């Protein structure tokens, strides 16, 4: 017995739209704030640095995470995918192999992480949190063993430049390649999640996995694809990361884990349908990156920066859920 009290769509929509715009407006306000008070925030150099070093790689990892969270899962091993891809890529370059092979090798390593996740979750029925946590630990060990306990590999000599230049320096119409990769990845994930049959199954899995099972859809297959896709996308991020810094630093992928999860959930909170979305995640990444960069530039004590980020997260959630409550 459910009482039929459907909220009138127009009212509902206006509230949702309002909370959407509120967050976008908040983002614009934050940018304006830093533009005024943070010296050099709007300088070309800072913005380029912001986009290349703070946005692109995190955004790509967060896109993979968006798929997983949309399916109702979580992937704590994205850092491992980033790192192993980066490690294999750099090792192959160091061994004198061509850039194309090295990229393929890096991606293959990341995909292996995804396959292991998929097997743990779908075959052994371990819940995604624990399965990927285990892979996170194992991934760290693999890196330690492969690098004599975590020694970075730097490839700064000129002879290695060609593949890196090919990946980072060149670009179409003056747009740096990493940005183009991000745009392509965002489009691909957008189509996969929001336009394809696969994406529908993913959203349904996130909303009600049993309903998907009862509809005769292969749940394990689609869950596996989600985790493998997330790992592969993180692998792309790993290659961009090591190309940008021309080195492989063990465990550097871990830095993206919480931000990627945070960006995805910020994006979920601000999306009209309260679901993980590509647009929302990208906005979440931008919010986090701009806050970090801006706080640094206005000279906030580094120790206190995380407080700013924490307050931001609460504000975003507060605004969007507060407006939603009003509807109740």
């Amino acid at each position: 017995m459910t009482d039929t009290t459907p909220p009138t769509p127009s009212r509902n929509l206006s509230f949702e739209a309002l909370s959407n715009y509120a967050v976008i407006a908040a983002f614009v306000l934050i940018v304006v704030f830093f533009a005024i008070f943070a010296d050099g925030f709007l300088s070309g150099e800072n913005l380029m640095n912001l986009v290349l070093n703070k946005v692109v790689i995190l955004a790509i990892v967060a896109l993979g995470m968006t798929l997983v969270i949309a399916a109702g899962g979580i992937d704590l091993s994205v850092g491992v995918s980033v790192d192993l891809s980066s490690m294999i890529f750099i090792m192959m370059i160091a061994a004198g192999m061509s850039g194309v092979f090295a990229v393929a090798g890096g991606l293959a390593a990341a995909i292996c992480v995804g396959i292991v996740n998929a097997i743990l979750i779908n075959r052994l029925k371990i819940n995604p949190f624990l399965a990927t946590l285990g892979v996170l630990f194992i991934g760290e060990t693999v890196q330690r063993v492969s690098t004599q306990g975590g020694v970075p590999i730097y490839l700064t000599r000129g002879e290695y430049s060609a593949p890196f230049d090919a990946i980072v320096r060149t670009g179409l119409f003056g747009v740096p390649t990493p940005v183009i990769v991000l745009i392509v990845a965002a489009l691909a994930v957008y189509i996969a999640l929001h336009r394809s049959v696969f994406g529908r199954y993913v959203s349904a899995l996130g909303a009600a996995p049993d309903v998907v099972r009862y509809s005769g859809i292969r749940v394990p297959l689609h869950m596996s694809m989600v985790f493998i896709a997330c790992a592969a996308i993180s692998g792309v991020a790993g290659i961009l990361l090591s190309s940008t810094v021309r080195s492989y630093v063990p465990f550097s992928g871990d830095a993206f884990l919480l931000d990627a999860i945070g960006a995805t959930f910020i994006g979920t909170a601000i999306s009209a349908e309260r679901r993980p979305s590509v647009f929302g995640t990208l906005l979440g990444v931008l919010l986090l990156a701009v806050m970090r960069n801006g706080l640094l530039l206005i000279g906030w004590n580094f120790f206190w920066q995380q407080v700013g980020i924490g307050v931001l997260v609460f504000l975003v959630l507060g605004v969007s859920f507060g407006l939603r409550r009003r509807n109740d």
Partner: protein
Amino acid sequence: MTAPAIEMRDIDKHFGPVHALDKADLVVAPGTVHGLVGQNGAGKSTIIKVLAGIYRRTGGTVRVFGEQIEQITPAVIEAKGVHFIHQDRLLVPSATVAESVFLRNEPRVGPFLEHRTMRRRAQELLKTHFNLDLDPGTLVQDLSTAQQKIVQITRALANDARVLVLDEPTAALVKKEVDNLFEVLRRLRDDGLAIIFISHYMSEISEICDTVTVLRNGTDVGVVDPREVGIQRIVDMMTNRDTSEMYPPRDVTHGEVVLEMRDATAEPHFRNVSLTLREGEILGLTGLLGSGDKEVMNALFGQIPLDSGEILLRGKPLRMRSPVDAVGQGFAKIPEDRRAHGVATALSVRENISLASLLSMSKRGLVSRKDEARVVDDLIADLGIKTPGRDQLVKNLSGGNQQKVVVAKWLSCESEVYLMDEPTVAVDVGAKIEIFTLMNRLAAEGKSMIFLSSDLEEIVEMCDRTLVIYRGELIGEYAKGDIDADRLLAAASGAASDETPKERSTA
């Protein structure tokens, strides 16, 4: 004069522009069972949720045993001894039976829980009130719906309830369990408890209730003694229409055999079950809780593997390893637990209806929104699904309309065999009639159905043939008109197991 146990006067509740309750009264005397009836949307749930402190009323007064309560919260109302058995608020799945019974009232020594006492007392309570031997260490998620309901009621009893509010308590219970429950309710009433009883089953209302408040469009339209005025009058008050056509008539024409099950065994659920199903046929399947009737249906949907025997579709043996196989062969299931298995309530009507048939409305893996909208809109119109639009979330639809969304999902992928597991659970009279009409339509279009219901009257009225499962064995097959609900119950209880089963269908 003693004050009423519950006295709600002129209760108003607005949801935005929707006026859910319009000066509704509900007055319940101690020592009575008070029925609350009305169609979906009449305001039953809303008034109960106002009393429970889940919704805040926009107007009116509430008194409990004469004491006026300004602001109701769930804790305040429970402290007054008013306990709720909500239909859709079940127990914590990962808790044990004992923990559930003593939730927030755990026996303890200092800060430590007395697990042993908890277990022992839970077991005693279940035994004395329901004559049920249930291991108190069992997890709630391993209980049947009926058992969960029983545990919920036991919890209220363990908390010394003075007023008990039961929202559709019998929805998933079989006759015997309902009788048990009623016995308990009568005893509690004689002990002076006030009981508010909400049910869609009018026969239960007239059987158990001393007084009935009828709600319509958010207002109470009458307080009557059901034994005096009769069911028909109450239904008329609820609906303002004539419901004598509860079970719409149907032209029965059966085509070829579509589905066969031959000597199917799946230990420990059922053994040597054979059945046939023809085009346009509605086959009833029934048995007591735990008899194996549900499992037979689950096996047909690939959810339980067969140890031996086979399932044939149009004479062709099938490999049924999972619902993927079943759906691929044209089987459709309307699951009992609609909210967990039938519809994704957080998704839209559109996404739910197209879920199983997306491949047919997509090109190169991409969904064609145009094709999807067309199919979905057609089905919404065709089945008369009441929704403001295809993008409305399913959780905002009534139970009957949610059920239609499930059926629409299967119609969109042209399923042939419909396995209906308690499709009428927790939907109101009007929606039931619509579901039956829909079943008749499916039959007329040549679809085949297996209909499982614990409401035996529905089975008797709707099914062309009915199979009875008792302790995992097919013990009887009855043609329409050969049996009534009482005899069917006797058969399901094993009383008729001496009779030679009529026309055992073994092709």
